[in-house]
């Protein structure tokens, strides 16, 4: 990397720099003894995200790398979904602590987590944006870890009181298994470096493209790619690296679970797209991925969808169900990853665009489902503990007791199921069409079957609030006293409905983001 390109690279990094500045401010402000200052954490984080989003949309220059249009799109998506997430995160930490302080206990910075929580939230999103900017393996590794490491801690500190033990357990599990995943893809990266002699993705692509002239795709490179993809599979919770998902989602507070379903998954998919782009499709060395890589993704996609959906059916805990369904959704997107960017004849056969669009849609609608859970709680029992709404039965008759939240759940679950004419349907269609265009008919059939299986458990989330009567024996679930959480839920539900009108535009934007670079003459060189 020359010095000049470093300059340019910094130009592309304004959003990340803004987020980092926001992180620094939040980290210090959250420790102020004054409540008013502490309260400013979320607004400052929001402002940083908003500015980052605007900067990403305005200042990001036309990139050169593997996918020139990816950066602005991904970063804007990250800041938009991040803002919605921020609304949901309100009140997750320090609830008991703040109550004690209000009742006269002195402020003890060591006991509060607010500063860390919001700072890590921003750190994670910074890492996610950096993933989209990555042009180097080392960069990619650091960005992926910057995305994940803060989430480990967010999970751990997300719940207080007795439930804190569960969130700590979840956090520790998440951390160690995450380390294992990181080790796996780091191993893969090392092999890739060994095979190509470079860590730069662009250079790597050119190396793979020059078969016979001291380049080409060697077996070592394939091995590296397989290990990399398997390692990154941890981030997207794909089989076989999905095992942590239900435990972690269940252990974490609902807002953090929503965050987990979006952030590492997006980072993982962006990394996978970048990695695969070096080797295959028209972006890299060949029209399609090398057989072994394609096969791995194929098997992974089929298994991930099926395992996720089948296990989700059995769950009675909504968070576990949504966790497994998150696994299944990763499988759906892997189908489009197998399909690749297509011939470029139409946007509907561009699988990468389909993934990017799906990530946005999934982030929004999943946010709504978790937000409904986060908005509800059982009033404190004899032990003074608030209980989260967790089981499917807790949602019984929600449309009658809490109409707005109930309908949000119904709309979001229908959208997750892919029910027309909601956003989830329009997001799922390109997955199908791109895979059909790529000729992956068997995979499309598996995808279709899985979409049908998914209906089984998503419809429970629809029927429970809508059709069932509220359980009279239990006190009804009450709203949590955080105003912005229902706001996040409604924004999500509204976007699921309203964005349908802009589905075409969004899909086109995603198509721009997934557009291959202008032909450089040797991009289609024969293997």
């Amino acid at each position, binding site marked *: 990397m020359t010095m000049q390109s470093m300059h340019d690279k910094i130009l592309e990094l304004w959003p990340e720099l803004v987020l980092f500045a926001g992180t620094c401010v939040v980290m210090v402000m959250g420790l102020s003894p004054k409540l008013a200052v502490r309260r400013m954490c979320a607004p400052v984080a929001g402002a940083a995200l908003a500015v980052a989003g605007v900067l990403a949309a305005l200042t990001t220059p036309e990139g050169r790398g593997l996918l020139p249009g990816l950066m602005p799109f991904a970063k804007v998506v990250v800041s938009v979904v991040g803002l919605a997430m921020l609304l949901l995160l309100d009140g997750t930490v320090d609830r008991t602590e703040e109550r004690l302080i209000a009742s006269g206990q002195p402020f003890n910075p060591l006991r509060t987590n607010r500063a860390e929580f919001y700072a890590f939230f921003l750190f994670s999103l910074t890492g996610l944006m950096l993933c989209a900017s990555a042009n180097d393996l080392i960069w990619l590794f650091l960005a992926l870890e910057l995305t994940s490491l803060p989430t480990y801690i967010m999970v751990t500190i997300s719940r207080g009181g007795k439930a804190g033990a569960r969130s700590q*357990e979840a956090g*520790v*599990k998440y951390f*160690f*298994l995450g380390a*294992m*995943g990181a080790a*796996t893809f780091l191993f893969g990266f090392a092999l890739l470096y060994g095979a190509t002699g470079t860590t730069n993705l662009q250079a790597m692509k050119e190396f793979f493209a020059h078969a016979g002239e001291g380049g080409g795709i060697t077996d070592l490179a394939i091995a590296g790619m*397989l290990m990399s993809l*398997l390692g990154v599979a*941890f981030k997207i919770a794909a*089989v*076989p*690296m999905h*095992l*942590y998902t239900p*435990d972690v989602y269940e252990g974490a507070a609902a807002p953090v679970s929503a965050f987990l379903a979006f952030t590492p998954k997006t980072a993982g998919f962006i990394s996978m797209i970048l990695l695969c782009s070096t080797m295959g499709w028209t972006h890299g060395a060949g029209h399609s991925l090398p*057989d*072994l890589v394609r*096969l*791995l993704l194929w*098997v*992974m996609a089929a*298994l991930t969808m099926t395992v996720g959906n*089948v*296990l989700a*059916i*059995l769950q009675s805990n909504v968070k576990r169900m949504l966790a497994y369904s998150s696994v299944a959704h990763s499988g759906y997107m892997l189908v489009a990853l197998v399909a690749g960017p*297509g*011939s470029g*004849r*139409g946007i*509907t*056969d561009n699988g990468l665009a389909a993934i990017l669009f799906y990530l946005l849609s999934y982030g929004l609608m999943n946010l709504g489902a978790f937000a409904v859970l986060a908005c509800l709680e059982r009033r404190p029992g004899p032990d003074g503990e608030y209980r989260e709404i967790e089981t499917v039965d807790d949602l019984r008759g929600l449309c009658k007791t809490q109409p707005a939240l109930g309908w949000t759940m119904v709309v979001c679950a229908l959208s997750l199921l892919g029910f027309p004419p909601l956003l989830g349907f329009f997001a799922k269609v390109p997955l199908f*069409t791109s895979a*059909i*265009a*790529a*000729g992956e008919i068997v995979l499309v059939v598996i995808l279709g079957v899985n979409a049908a299986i998914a209906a089984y458990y998503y419809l429970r989330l629809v029927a429970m609030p809508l059709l069932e009567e509220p359980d009279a024996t239990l006190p009804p679930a009450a709203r949590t006293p955080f105003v912005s959480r229902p706001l996040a839920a409604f924004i999500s539900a509204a976007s699921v409905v309203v964005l349908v009108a802009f589905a*075409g535009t969004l899909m086109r934007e995603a198509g721009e983001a997934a557009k291959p670079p202008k032909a450089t003459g040797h991009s289609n060189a024969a293997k």
Partner: protein
Amino acid sequence: MTELATTVWQGLAAAGLGAAEGWGVPPAVPGPMWIGLIPALPLLAVVLCTLCAIFKVKSKLPAWLTVGCLAASFVVTLLMYLNMSGSPMLSTAFTWIDVSWGSERSPRNLHANFGFYIDSLTCLWMLFVTGLATLIALYASEYMSHDVGKGYSRFFAAFSLFVFSMACLVMADNLILLYLGWEGVGLCSYLLIGYFYKKPSAVAAAKKAFIMNRIGDLGLALGIFLIFVKFGTVEYAKLFADGAFKEMLGHAMTGTSESWAKIPWDVKLIPILLMVGAFGKSAQFPLYVWLPDAMEGPTPVSALIHAATMVTAGVFLIARTYAVFQLSPSALTIVAIIGTVTALLAATIGMAQFDIKRIMAYSTVSQLGYMFAGLGVMTSVGACFHVFTHAFFKALLFLACGAVMHGFAGQLDLRKLSGVGKMPGWRIVGITMLVGCLNLAGFPLLAGFWSKDMILAQAFITPGMGLVGWVLLLTAGLTAYYTFRVYFRVFVGPQEHHPGDEAHGHDDHDAHGHGGHGHDDHGHAKADHKHEAHDFHPHPPGWAINLVLVVLAAASFAIIPLTFMGKHGGWVGDMVSHSSAAWSAPGEHHDDHAGHSHAAGDTHSHAGESSRSHDEEKLGTFLGMDPHAVMYYVSGVVGLIGIGVAYRLHLQGRTSAATSRADALLPMLGPIPKWAQNKWYVDEFYHFLFVRPLWVLSHIFHLIDRMLVDGLVNLAGILPRALGATIRPSQSGQLHGYAVAMAGGIGVLLLIVLLVAR
């Protein structure tokens, strides 16, 4: 003969078969974007009415919103009509479906825009769809007033959704969008028939309509699939310009057995499949039984959906794809025969019914039969013309019947009403009803007369269709009889009325259609009305209903000048013959017509048809005379005879509502009237043939489902559980268990990949 052959050749050459253009359809030109407003405005009404439903609006607001949006849509349609040029216009709202697959060498692409194909056929249909919808919505605003606040918003939302779907169906530029509209109108029909969902018979009727339509829809879907498979496109413009399609059309036009043999059998199957779809939607034999039952819906719905517009979708489908229908030697013949059978069958049933709305329903089925017969004998102009005139006078008839039903608390039995037209406040209803009846009966010089005439004449002209013509002529007489049976018994004669079972005390219509308890049992026809006058007063229709009736009656008259302005259907004929339905039958197109018709295509179709009728064969005649010339008189006379018989039997000397001279004649006919009254036991036959076996089958499947499928589902539940039990150590929060499983998973996956690759 040689001349004809030369004409064929020239026609083929001129039309440029296999080259650039379609047969009579000029290449499409881009149309303006605002055409999209025509379906968009009703959709807006749907949204607004839904909002009204959500916010529980307790006023007539939804009705006014609907009327406003539909009227605006009608205005846009008018603008579209004024903007028409000779070529069809294509206007794309957005790309809807675009999927490519296949290899580089044989790329396959399914492309369907959410776009509109506007030619004069579309204009014709949209004009009466939006126009009638506006009027009927206005009528419904009063008619449905009992339901304000309860189902009012729901009714108008579904009503507007229907108009939106119909617009999609008619304006679509591809068969998939047409199918969307097709299913959409089916859905709305279901929703509106079952509008009084607390009434079991309405629910049953809704289900019957929906299921019957499924049979037809299956045919349509298969037909569309087959078109895509054979010609690689579902867009009309591309299909009509497709080389393979035109080549096959050329074979069909040549008409010899060798040339027929060149058309693959599965292409010949396409029109048959489309035809099944059309039969289902347009209530043709054997799929007609749902339509009379559909009268369970509110009357405006019956008028709009089940008389004027939706049921003509089948005619539209055939007219739109008329060229495709030329590809099969038998399809149009079947259409003609089925249409004729339906016309006769429904007319005979209609003669024996007592429920006036049901009589109108059977007359609709019968008239639809006419339209199909018209298509079958190659007069698409006649068929579409009849659709057009029928839409107006049938809507008028239904709305007049609806006014009676509304005013007399749901009373529809013609034995319990008499002299309604003379009652105070009912004069307009009586007069407009007379206009409608005259039209339906084919009274000379009225709109219905001209359109029916055209079909009749063509039936006699087309070779081999003579029998069809005779049956249709007989049916025309029967139609006149049963139409005026209603009029003479209900609207004139001695004044008498008994309220229907929806009368609850004084003018209380709260239970309108909700399965009222019927505290008065009026089964005994002898009860005189004075006895009931103290607790029931019919309330005459208000301004909205009257206004709509008058406008419709005026429109029925206004069609006549439209007809007179030229030969062969006049204005309507022009509209149709400039569209994709522009195939004409032998003898219909004379030289005078070529002036305003697309020259190349016309010559071709003319020539093509001539050759198809095996050249030397003489065109059919009516008892040795030119049918076009004499049919005016013959059908007029037949209609008058029918009316005369009805007068003699049902008005002359009738003193009460319940009895008439016809009753004396019934025993002479033996059991036939009873059979006809029981609809020839077709429903019972279907019940025995399909419903009962299906019932048994469904129970068997239910058992299988319980045992096998539930078993499988449980197994599917048990398997993961069993699997879970084996991985339980790692699932119970054991960190190392997860780690081992992940590492093992990586190993297994790599192994799978390597093994499969090998």
